């Protein structure tokens, strides 16, 4: 399945302390309708040429709800107009802080076929919110109100929780809080990623993140039916149990090249949201290239060759490779200045897998079928 991150707007109504998105002024701030039309036309062309494919259209930002519900309604209309034969293979999903969600958004979101929304939540106060210091209570009320609105309309929601230095004191408490909030799973616990320019007081080291996950995993694993789907635990367990890397996220798949794109408000196409923010892996402008032409971009060769380079280099002999593939290429670039190197979070992954996952489960991560 191909994925398009549609950076609907650079604007955001929040200011999360760890947000990677650079809120520098960008023209245009929102994706113009003309660019939206072009994107949809490109998607249609791609899906017509690849009848076996589906396209995940991920609304992202900034905060995508800032563009107003009319924009979503317009997208549905344009999709009907420009993708009459392929719209059934376009799967829309939304990444939003939800604080602007209203009843009026529901119909347009459903018209686009959305069944679930991704969001995020911080347990610790003053990491996100409005004003200074951030009023996280007011923010959380708005977020929780929106989750209730989604539930009343039969829409699912899940969250990303960002593990920061303030999370480390009570990993099990964090797990319980998120499990209680989501009532049966549906959350990811990702490490904080801070740009060099951002304040570093929230930063966590690889070992700290691994130990956080390990403590939470020790609670999750024996009670996994109670807690439900928690990432990265559920996917890792599923893949190890199946003895195959069959359901890996984009950063672990080793196959994001050529099937993952980001379009910003100016129509610039890059590999993903993070590459867009860093100004790397830039593929051109959607007004001038098609997705198929992007597949032939010479920059793709470097990404496609990454697995082989890692097998020979940084990841030679690593028991985790089939489940990790050296992690996100962007993390490799940030840590080592090159996409041909492994993620800077390698130590965390290995420590979690070998010091916690294997002993706790009694399963081995070795010998997993590599499907990249």
């Amino acid at each position, binding site marked *: 399945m191909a994925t398009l991150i549609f950076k609907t707007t650079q604007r955001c109504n929040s200011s999360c302390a760890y947000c990677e998105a650079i809120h520098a002024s960008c023209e245009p701030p929102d994706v113009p309708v003309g660019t939206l039309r072009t994107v949809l036309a490109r998607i249609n062309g791609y899906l017509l040429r690849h009848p076996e494919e589906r396209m995940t259209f991920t609304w992202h930002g900034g905060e995508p709800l800032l563009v107003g519900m009319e924009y979503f309604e317009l997208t549905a209309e344009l999709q009907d107009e420009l993708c009459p034969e392929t719209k059934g293979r376009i799967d829309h999903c939304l990444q939003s802080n939800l604080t602007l969600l209203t009843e009026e958004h529901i119909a347009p979101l459903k018209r686009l076929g959305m069944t679930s929304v991704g969001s995020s*939540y911080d347990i610790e*106060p003053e990491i996100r919110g409005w004003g200074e210091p951030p009023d996280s209570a007011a923010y959380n009320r708005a977020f929780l109100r929106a989750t209730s609105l989604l539930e009343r309309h039969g829409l699912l929601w899940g969250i990303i929780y960002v593990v920061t230095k303030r999370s480390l004191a009570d990993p099990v408490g964090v797990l319980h809080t998120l499990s*209680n*909030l989501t009532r049966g799973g549906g959350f990811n616990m990702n490490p904080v990623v801070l740009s060099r320019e951002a304040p570093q007081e929230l930063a966590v080291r690889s070992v700290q993140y691994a130990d956080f996950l390990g403590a939470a995993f020790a609670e999750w694993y024996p009670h996994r*039916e109670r807690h*439900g789907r928690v990432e990265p635990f559920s996917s890792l367990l599923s893949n190890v149990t199946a003895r195959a890397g069959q359901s890996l996220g984009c950063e672990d798949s080793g196959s994001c090249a050529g099937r993952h794109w980001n379009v910003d408000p100016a129509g610039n196409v890059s590999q993903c949201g993070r590459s867009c923010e860093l100004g790397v892996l830039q593929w051109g402008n959607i007004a001038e290239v098609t997705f198929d032409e992007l597949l032939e971009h010479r920059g793709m060769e470097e990404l496609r060759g990454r697995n082989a380079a890692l097998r020979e280099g940084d990841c030679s002999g690593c028991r985790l490779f089939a489940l990790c593939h050296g992690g996100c290429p962007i993390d490799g670039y940030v840590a080592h200045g090159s996409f041909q190197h492994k993620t800077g979070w390698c130590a965390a992954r290995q420590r979690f897998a070998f010091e916690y996952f294997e002993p706790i489960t009694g399963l081995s991560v070795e010998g997993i079928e590599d499907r990249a």
Partner: protein
Amino acid sequence: MSDFTFVAPFHPPLFPRLAGKRVVLVVDRADLVCQVPQVVGDHKLDLACVYLRQQNREFALEIDAGWGGLRLALEMPPPLRFSALFPYLETLAQLNVRLYIDGAAPGALPTTRILASLGYSCCVVLSREKAPQLDWDALKDLAVYALYPPQPHGEIDPFAYVARRGDEHGFVDPRGVYFDDPSQYVHVDEEGRLSLCAADQRARVFLDEPIEEQAQVRESAAYQDAMDAWKGVFVEPNPCARCEGWRVCQGLFAPTDGQPRCQDVFREVLEGAEHTLERQKAVKQTWRP
């Protein structure tokens, strides 16, 4: 979603308006209980149970073996000493009764255990207001006894209720055992005004909808707020949010003095509820002709 069950006083002018509806009839006088079957038949009430309040402030039970199979929730007056209960046991054994016992009352928890061991179904009434007076260690012992029975005994709620009503992840609103879960019950006063819970009724907080429009209640803002109230613990740092046992208590019994003595108990209740479910799944079901 199904219609509400009405928690209603024994007030004859209300009965025609409750025709065909499921009701918990709250009775303040024991002599009225024998009239209930007639009332149910005349007005075609769907009787969930009779909740008999005891007005005596010194221990005495007004019960009658003639009540037969009528589903009865009997509020037990304090102080609850087994020796004082003993003369009534034979009569109680003839009734289809669940004994509602104030968990914070002196002697309540040990007496509850004895009653359950004799086969009586009991329900320990817990509340946030009385949580500071509760013997939490004794409550934990009772929960373990309820959910890990060495021998068969009478059910002990809210523990048994939690075990049988939890969803696939163990979440349950325990107020249902007290007829106070707003997703299931609505309280009606003598004037026919509806409230979402007993506390609202006491505070004279009423819904706009009358009995006849109870189906609209689920669309009301007040109902939605009641359904979303559980999310309040996630607004700001709250020990309830981090508690493993929260999914079976929803923070409803957390002591107001800020001492989370409840956590140990409800952690145990959660484990016990899961153990109960596992035990039930393991029971082999043989086919029946």
